[in-house]
């Protein structure tokens, strides 16, 4: 369980996060949605400690993560996996080395044990036969899947995904979404996904938080979202003609 309490964050006197409070439960796919520039990524990076909040508290179960000393935070992070928007795979390493990286840095496993774990993770995300390839030789979807494999290599209790299906075709995007949901349920992970893709919201959103101009504007499930009364949220969800048409059809 992750809890954020009254989070504020500013950059150069521009307020990006304004009094955000939310809780994210394990075994569920928690989605943070909002338009580009609404503060989603800053919120995600603040939750994982890549940005320090100006005020507020972040709790990981009973641990006040936001006040942990650097060394303890470092240890805590070994229990957190993160998939970055662009994959953030290491250019200098092959697929196998990328997934093996956290195992090499933080476990005392033998090379064979590490390889076994790497193969398991890669198989879990459906990457077979690309172990010796470099990230630049992979498609966007494959890079994302390798990113997920690397994120789960240490069996984390928390998984963060920053726009996991941006730049992907609809089919691959659905595959990635499903993979995230399956992994979340399979390992009972607390997963937080940043997205502005409505397909993801409807497919995997157990809990959805809508961020508007740095504020938490709405909270609910993907089932509730179509009936939400918020004008700002409706403008965001039904931005395209197709979604407007679907709304009219569903109203009939």
């Amino acid at each position: 369980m992750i809890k954020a309490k009254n989070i504020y964050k500013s950059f150069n006197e521009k307020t990006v996060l304004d009094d955000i409070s939310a809780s994210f439960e394990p075994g569920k796919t928690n989605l943070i949605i909002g338009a580009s520039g609404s503060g989603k990524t800053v919120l995600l990076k603040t939750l994982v400690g890549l940005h320090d909040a100006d005020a507020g508290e972040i709790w990981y179960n009973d641990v006040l993560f936001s006040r942990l000393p650097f060394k303890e935070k470092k240890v805590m992070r070994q229990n957190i996996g993160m998939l970055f928007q662009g994959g953030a795979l290491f250019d200098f390493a092959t697929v196998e080395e990328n997934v093996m990286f956290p195992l090499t840095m933080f476990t005392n496993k033998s090379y064979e044990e590490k390889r076994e774990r790497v193969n398991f993770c890669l198989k879990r995300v459906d990457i077979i036969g690309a172990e010796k390839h470099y990230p630049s030789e992979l498609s966007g979807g494959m890079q994302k899947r390798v990113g997920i494999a690397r994120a789960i290599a240490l069996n984390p209790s928390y998984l963060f995904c920053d726009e996991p299906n941006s730049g992907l075709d609809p089919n691959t995007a659905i595959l990635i979404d499903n993979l995230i949901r399956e992994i979340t349920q399979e390992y009972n992970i607390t997963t937080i996904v940043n997205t502005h893709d409505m397909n993801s919201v409807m497919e995997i959103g157990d809990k959805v938080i809508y961020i508007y101009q740095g504020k938490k504007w709405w909270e609910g499930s993907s089932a509730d979202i179509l009936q939400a009364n918020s004008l700002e949220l409706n403008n965001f969800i039904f931005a395209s003609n197709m979604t407007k048409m679907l709304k009219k059809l569903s109203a009939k």
Partner: protein
Amino acid sequence: MHSFFELFGRYFLLMRKVFTRPDRISVFWRQLILETEKLGLSSIAIVAIISVFIGGVIALQSSFNIVSPLIPKMYVGYMTRETMVLEFSSTMIALILAGKIGSNIASEIGSMRITEQIDAMEMMGVNSANYLILPKIIAATVFNPLLMLLSFIVGLAGGWLIVAATGVITISQYVDGLQMEFNNFYITYSMIKMAVFSFIITSVSAFFGYYAFGGSLHVGRSSTRAIVSCCVAILIFNLILTQLLL
């Protein structure tokens, strides 16, 4: 002025993060070997080529400028040796390396920053500054003084080749000049300078790369700023070290 001190402060804070115990000693050694190959061994050819030509040119120019019959011709060898050991093999080679390895380091780390690879390392709990920068600093600071020695020897050989090929003076005159009033400490002085310059090149370039932001354009700018800053710092420290050591 404020931003200058801010820059300095950030540099020292980064260095504090760099000079900590590596997360994994075995990984650190592996990285150190890789960086020695990348930053040091790969520079041998360029250092040798430049040094052999410059050694030859110094020998030729010296011989052309010694027109007085009162000055012995063996001074050609002496001047070649002194120029190479005191300035060229340390300062000039360091300025060349600032362009070669400085831009390499700044752009490599800068690209990793803007593609969130550094964030990914931090997320895993890895001290990214220590992992990425410390092996580079140690590899260059330890290995580059050997490049200085190589440059010195190859430069003298370049002078010898030119003397032999053109016959401006005899080879024995050149060799006598090389052996004349040789001060061993000049080698130590030059190696110390090279070690300090290498530390500057790697740490300053890494600093500009590590704090790069934006897109590829900004990485390019960071790389340029890194090289300019390294060159200025090398020239300033050249003065300071010369005053302190000689």
